[in-house]
């Protein structure tokens, strides 16, 4: 392969003349669709942080914050750019398009989808489009997961326009921003388990032609103060308890799996020969393995415990290593990250934990697993209050045994907001787009 950057080995499903064999990239460095181009297998240059605006802090707007993550850079660990979207809509997750040139970033409250160009100059992303028709055209609200398919973006939503509850579905847009189709989450019984209609994450395995979805809660719950919510027994019944297996080609659900306690992020092991994915259930603090049996049917089984479930540690984001042999799990309430050995996915074994802050939510690791990035915010109304409301991006180096702090950005001190989802980019120092060369 040829490197398009001295600092970043950016490879994958890209034709390169005079190149040597490019191995079929099997996973991304974070929770991206792994079937997109330009996986960063070397040193990432930038971490983009989709950040919730806070009233009275800076411009108060949701924004895409870009932090220099290359230790060789003069601005390493510093904020180098910030693009506000001009409003506060509960910024949450984002995802690259298939060619990794654009980031789609969603707001869970206003249901707007902001598209940033991060390919032209990743140090200075540009907001190029805002898609506002999701509720009107699909009756879904709360765009959560943005999962790239070739030439299009599949969006997992959290709620609906009718009652703002948890029954929802997925929306499929083309890369130009036009809606192609909508898909309801199943509410009927499939495989002996009744669907609850709830949605959250999306994870695809093309080799299996399988799409997995998980389930969380509707607008009424995720936009409510956490302290009030957990005292409301009726509201606490309205969390997802299922995962759904879909036929990717037909986009039809084929099985509903019982996974109680709000199963959130889903990660496939994409190592050849593996036939499983893993998730963490937030309310029960359990790891669940979703595995295909010899007959082809899928099953979900509880395989591990995260922290002390009696203390409700609230596992939130997870990050699987590229080889599928290790899993990071962040628990929000105690601000702790846990590392599990997944060598035997039927029996995950915690081998390390470290308290990161008063609260911690998202986690992303580099492809080689040597660098780990974490942010603090869960949801505007679920974050802790007062002194416990730390808002940070903290970067660490991981040697396989312990995390060592690398840098941190205080998002309150910098008047940025509540940092949430992260994505990596790398410069393309030695290449130019055809369009740029034609000018």
């Amino acid at each position, binding site marked *: 392969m040829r490197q398009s950057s001295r600092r970043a080995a950016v490879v994958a499903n890209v*034709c390169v003349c005079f190149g040597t064999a490019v191995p079929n990239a099997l996973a991304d460095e974070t929770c991206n669709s792994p079937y997109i181009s330009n996986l960063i297998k070397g040193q990432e240059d930038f971490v983009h942080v989709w950040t919730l605006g806070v009233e009275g802090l800076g411009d108060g707007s949701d924004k895409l914050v870009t932090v220099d993550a290359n230790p060789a850079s003069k601005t390493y660990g510093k904020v180098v750019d910030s693009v506000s979207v001009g409003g506060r809509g509960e910024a949450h997750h984002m995802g690259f398009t298939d060619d990794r040139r654009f980031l789609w970033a969603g707001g869970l409250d206003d249901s707007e989808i902001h598209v940033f160009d991060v390919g032209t100059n990743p140090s200075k992303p540009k907001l190029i489009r805002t898609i506002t028709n999701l509720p009107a055209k699909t009756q879904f609200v709360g765009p959560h997961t943005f999962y790239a398919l070739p030439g299009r973006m599949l969006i997992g939503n959290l709620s609906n326009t009718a009652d703002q509850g948890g029954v929802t579905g997925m929306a499929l847009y083309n890369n*130009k921003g036009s809606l192609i189709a909508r898909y309801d989450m199943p509410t009927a019984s499939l495989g002996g388990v009744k669907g609850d209609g709830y949605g959250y994450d999306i994870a695809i395995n093309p080799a299996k032609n399988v799409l997995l979805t998980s389930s969380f809660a509707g607008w009424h719950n995720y936009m409510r103060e956490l302290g009030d919510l957990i005292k409301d027994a009726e509201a606490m019944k309205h969390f997802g308890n299922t995962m759904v297996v879909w036929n990717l080609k037909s986009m039809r659900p084929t099985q509903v799996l019982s996974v109680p306690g709000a199963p959130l992020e889903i990660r496939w092991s994409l190592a*050849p020969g593996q036939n499983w994915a893993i998730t963490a259930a937030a309310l029960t603090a359990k790891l669940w393995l979703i595995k295909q049996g010899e007959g082809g049917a899928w099953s979900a089984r509880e395989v591990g415990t995260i922290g002390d479930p009696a203390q409700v540690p609230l596992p939130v984001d997870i990050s699987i290593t590229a080889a599928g042999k290790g899993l990071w799990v962040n628990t929000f309430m105690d601000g702790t990250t846990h590392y599990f050995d997944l060598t035997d996915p039927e029996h995950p074994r915690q081998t390390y934990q470290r308290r990161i802050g008063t609260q911690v939510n998202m986690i992303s690791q580099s492809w080689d697993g040597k660098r780990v990035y974490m942010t603090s915010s869960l949801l505007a109304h679920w974050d802790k209050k007062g002194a416990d409301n730390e808002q940070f991006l903290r970067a660490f180096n991981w040697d396989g045994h312990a995390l060592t702090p690398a840098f941190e950005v205080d998002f309150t001190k910098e008047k940025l907001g509540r940092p949430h989802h992260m994505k990596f980019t790398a410069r393309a120092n030695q290449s130019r787009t055809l369009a740029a060369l034609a000018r």
Partner: protein
Amino acid sequence: MLRVSRRVAACLSILASAQAAVDVSPATAPRMEFTPLAPGTYQLQAIQSVEDATLLDERARPVRLSAFTRGKITLLTFFYTYCVDPLGCPFARQTMTLLRDRMLRDRELARAVRFVAISCDPGTDTPDVLARYARHFAPDSRFEWRFLTARSVSALLPVLADFGQDVSVDVDASGRATRALHHMLKAFLIDQRGRVREIYSLAYLQPQVMLNDIRTLYLERRARALPAK
């Protein structure tokens, strides 16, 4: 303007020697660990329409792109003749050759389908180069497999933009374009009305699935051709 060599003979020489080194082994191919759905049992969504443009065919004639994206089921790719990435253009070509050979078992189906390959390096891939390439790699007269280029990079850019096909070029220390091109491998399945109905990147280049998708569009086409009752 992309500054690349126009030495056709040299290019083909490089091409011939490079092709010999290509070894697309099953271990590097996309995996398919499922039985694909039967043709016609599922629907392919209309992803986008294709904007028209003027390109050049293998005989240097100006042609409308719509003439190659309508009327038949079309599998369209972007490529360049000298690509030697075993998981890039050669892999796409190998997959398409396999598909063509499978479709030729059903003459009626084969007549309803065409392949189109558009060069993303019009500076090097002149009509003459494409004609030679076509004779070398797609010589079966029973199947329409066309190779198109553009008068210039500027004429090509709107086509690339419409398909969302990224292309970048490595530059040398003085900023001059080299012959190292990067583009994400994609194949676009287009129905007879000029609408993109499926897009395959490397992980989705599964020949049996692609064949079933083509047959699904073919069944749609036949159903539409039947007289209304």
